[in-house]
């Protein structure tokens, strides 16, 4: 019997010719990633473990992205600790304010992740890199520390579940809608411990940015990882970055515990309503809900394609008088492209506040939290109680077009309501 792509990557990394779900193994890591929330704690454990030098400074990537720019003294201390660790360990791949981005936007952009790579990161949305056909998964600070010391991590081989998307999407339906619909359908533990393999003609037709969005939210279904087997889109993306890689694919006779199918032509834009990413409705069911704030950005939807989509809706229009809209480009390079493409002018003229790249409000850090009784539409990935501010605030998760349209309308709307006027 053959292996799925997830199994193959784990097998190769652990020096085994064949692995099966449930098997425990120790594997060599291609990339170990940390940021200002996970690394300070990891650095302490690193020292307690007897670590002196990281296993390979070239394979460690550190980004200040959460409490960056620092919004408190403690956040400043955390960023300083990452800086200090990077310097002492000679870590070249350290990205700080002004030269950074949100890690899961930045690392692929820089060509630091390749198809077939085995990646752990001190962040639950590390699974984002699966869009490139890497096996990427989030870990806590102690696993991160162990990875920094040994260059290895233990894994229980996950079961692979196949998700097939076919048909052609209607206007304003994006990768965000595919994954929201999926999580709404299978539940927040519907893929618990599994490797979600995203395939089908609709995935083949999906841009890399759309694939990042989908894999980013695999964790919200409880998955160990989300993965898109490399294809022509992957090859072109890596070629743009001048990176070669060895092809990797699932064998035709590999085993999946389940196959789930979706006809994307039947989808309208999706909305995750309070207070769970699994609480999903079509936008028409939620239309008219009043909105106080709109956030467009994050590791889910902070890439250039996302901001182009938002700008398409906002162009020549104004943010509703009772709404505050914030756009957060996911990296310095995305911000630069927004400038050169005229998107910043569109945002400014619409009355949108523009932020530097940061995770900011997504995790309740800074740059646009909510007061009691306030409601936000956000292109982020989680809407648990209190996630973005007061426990009595509400978060609705959408794609960038719905977010932008809702900013204009002052309430949640299908983008065509705004575009057709």
């Amino acid at each position: 019997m053959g292996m799925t792509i997830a199994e193959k990557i784990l097998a190769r990394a652990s020096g085994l010719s064949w692995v099966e779900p449930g098997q425990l193994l120790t594997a060599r890591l291609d990339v170990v990633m940390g940021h200002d929330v996970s690394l300070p704690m990891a650095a302490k454990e690193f020292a307690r473990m007897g670590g002196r030098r990281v296993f390979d400074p070239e394979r460690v990537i550190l980004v200040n992205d959460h409490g960056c720019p620092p919004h408190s003294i403690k956040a400043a201390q955390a960023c300083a600790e990452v800086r200090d660790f990077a310097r002492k360990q000679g870590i070249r791949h350290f990205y700080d304010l002004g030269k950074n981005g949100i890690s899961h936007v930045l690392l692929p952009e820089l060509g630091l992740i390749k198809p077939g790579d085995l990646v752990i990161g001190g962040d639950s949305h590390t699974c984002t890199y699966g869009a490139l056909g890497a096996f990427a998964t989030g870990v806590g600070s102690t696993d991160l520390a162990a990875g920094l010391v040994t260059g290895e991590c233990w894994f229980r081989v996950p079961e692979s579940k196949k998700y097939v998307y076919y048909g052609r999407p209607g206007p304003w339906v994006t990768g965000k809608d595919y994954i929201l619909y999926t999580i709404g359908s299978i539940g927040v533990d519907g893929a618990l411990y599994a490797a979600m393999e995203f395939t089908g003609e609709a995935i083949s037709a999906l841009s890399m940015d759309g694939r990042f969005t989908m894999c980013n939210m695999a964790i919200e279904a409880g998955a160990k990882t989300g993965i898109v087997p490399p294809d022509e889109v992957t090859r072109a993306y890596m070629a743009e970055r001048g990176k070669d890689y060895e092809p990797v694919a699932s064998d035709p006779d590999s085993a999946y515990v389940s196959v789930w199918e979706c006809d994307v032509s039947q989808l309208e834009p999706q909305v995750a309503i309070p207070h769970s990413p699994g609480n999903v409705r079509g936008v028409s069911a939620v239309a008219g809900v009043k909105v106080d704030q709109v956030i467009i950005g994050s590791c889910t939807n902070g890439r250039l394609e996302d901001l182009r989509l938002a700008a398409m809706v906002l162009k020549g229009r104004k943010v509703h008088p009772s709404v505050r809209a914030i756009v957060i480009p996911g990296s310095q390079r995305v911000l630069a492209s927004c400038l050169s493409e005229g998107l910043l002018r569109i945002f400014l003229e619409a009355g949108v506040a523009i932020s530097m790249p940061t995770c900011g409000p997504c995790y309740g850090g800074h740059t646009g939290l909510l007061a009691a009784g306030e409601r936000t539409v956000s292109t982020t990935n989680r809407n648990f109680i209190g996630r973005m501010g007061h426990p009595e605030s509400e978060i609705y998760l959408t794609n960038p077009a719905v977010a932008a349209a809702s900013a204009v309308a002052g309430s949640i709307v299908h983008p065509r309501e705004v575009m057709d006027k």
Partner: protein
Amino acid sequence: MKLKGRVWKLGENIDTDCIVPGQYLTLFEPGELAKHCLEGLDPEMPSKLNPGDIIVAGRNFGCGSSREHAPIALKGAGIACVIAPSFARIFFRNAINIGLNVLESKEALELVNDGDILEIDLEDGFLTNLATKKTCKVSPMPGFVKEIMEAGGLTNYVRQRQIGNA
């Protein structure tokens, strides 16, 4: 090893923002994090918890973020064990790594009510409700994981091996 404590019965999908809200992610001392343990669920919760208490929760406990702050806060507050039919994978792994007892049991929720005293026999894998005398069995840990727990967490486990390799 036997544990005995008051049960806090919680719902399903208790997420990591609920266990440690995002604004506290710049803290890392267990004592500091304990002051905000489960604050997202109930602002008074940190003052209600006592060392030795046991959490029996619904499925998918600890879903959401990889923040190790979550199990650290629970351990810092003195929670002796968390029992649930299923756990979010990163939380489960983190709990093992820092030495917080986590047990998978499908029957535990039926066995107890909030406020009951529960006894846990970690060696034999039995839960006993001391009021009703009802018991149920819990799934044992895989061997590798037991080794990490017995070493007192991943840090000790790795350090022992580093010293061995020196």
